[in-house]
């Protein structure tokens, strides 16, 4: 679920923090910059693991702050393909079931991945799985708050950084679209854990954890 990513960055320490130990200031700055943020093509950054190398600090003319190049390792949430995770159903909509794991919410089970036959109950806004056994059809409701085990199938990174001045003409035409669309920078597409089994009780273990 979590990986260690080696990164490099230049950290700026303002002069009023010079009395503090450099390592502490740098750790604080890095956490301030990266914690709880998604880095494109890397994942959701959690916290700093350690600092591997500190290069010399420079002070540039006109700015009293010191700039230090830091090599560090950061704990990042980036599940690998086919990883099994456990989460809670947050909501259901036409695009599928939205699952959350507390610190990360953009997990979606598309309708095709739900065990067929599945239908969306408009009145209650939940997806229902009609499970047929010898005894008859059971309706398994994917209620909000239920724990569910899922397998990661795909991930999408979207670059949500602001466009620069060079694309000024393009941005004016897309301005209204961009303002309305707030895309999640990191989305996981997952599927319910389905394997062919025999008894209904085993299904419930899989499905309801």
């Amino acid at each position: 679920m979590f990986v260690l990513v080696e990164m490099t960055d230049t950290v700026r320490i303002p002069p009023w923090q010079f009395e503090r130990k450099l390592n502490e200031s740098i750790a604080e700055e890095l956490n301030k910059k990266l914690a709880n943020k998604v880095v494109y093509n890397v994942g959701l950054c959690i916290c700093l693991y350690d600092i591997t190398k500190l290069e010399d600090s420079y002070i540039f003319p006109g700015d009293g702050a010191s700039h230090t190049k830091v090599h560090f390792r950061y704990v990042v949430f980036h599940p690998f393909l086919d990883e099994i995770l456990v989460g809670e159903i947050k909501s259901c909509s036409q695009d599928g079931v939205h699952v959350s794991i507390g610190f990360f919410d953009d997990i979606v089970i598309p309708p095709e991945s739900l065990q067929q036959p599945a239908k969306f109950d408009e009145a209650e806004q939940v997806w229902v799985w009609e499970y047929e056994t010898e005894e008859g059809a059971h309706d398994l409701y994917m209620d909000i708050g239920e724990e569910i085990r899922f397998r990661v199938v795909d991930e999408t990174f979207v670059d949500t950084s602001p466009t620069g001045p060079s694309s000024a003409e393009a941005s004016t035409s897309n301005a209204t679209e961009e303002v309305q669309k707030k895309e999640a920078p990191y989305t996981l597409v997952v599927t319910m854990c389905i394997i062919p089994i025999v008894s209904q009780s085993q299904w419930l273990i899989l499905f309801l954890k």
Partner: protein
Amino acid sequence: GAGWGGIVRLLLVRAAGPRCVCVWGLFIGPALCVEKRLCGPELSALLPCWHRCGVQGDGVCHVLRPSVLRKDANAALLSNFEVFQLLTDLKQQRKESGKSKQSSGQQNLNTIMYETLKYISKTPCRYQSPETVREFLIAMKGHKLTKAEKLQLLNHRPVTAVEIQLMVEESEERLTEEQIESLLQTVASILPGDPEEQQRDSAMETEGRGSQ
């Protein structure tokens, strides 16, 4: 501010390839920049850029080369237990150092730490220790599983054969029923589970034996 500018630079580097930013990650014109330099050969083709080129100041932009920023995207896989330990230690440290730091920028860190700890604390890793993890990995050597599969077994502590089949790819071909059983035995014996559950299970077992 500087913080936001820095993130912009990080993201920009990822997405758009070489683009000129000042050391604070903002697009600034020549009038604002104190030091004016032309970019190195890699960037001069695009447009003259008024910025401080990296830390070495040699005219070549070190900051914008993606490989410099992210050296190794997958340096190591971390188990839930390691992240749990790291976050608890960090929380302890921050508590000890007191609230003297400004909490303005720390809100994100607080949020992510709290939520992640809340999630991980519900998984079996809260009963684990470095010794159990080491023991487990040594015991797993004989089973011929990939690193990712061992990690999932460690994080989830499966108790049924169905769960093993989920986590191990093509388990029907690679593992016989006895092997799956022995795997479950190893997991149950080495990795500690919920102490209350285990007491209940052992109590039920003794009851069962007693009634016979």
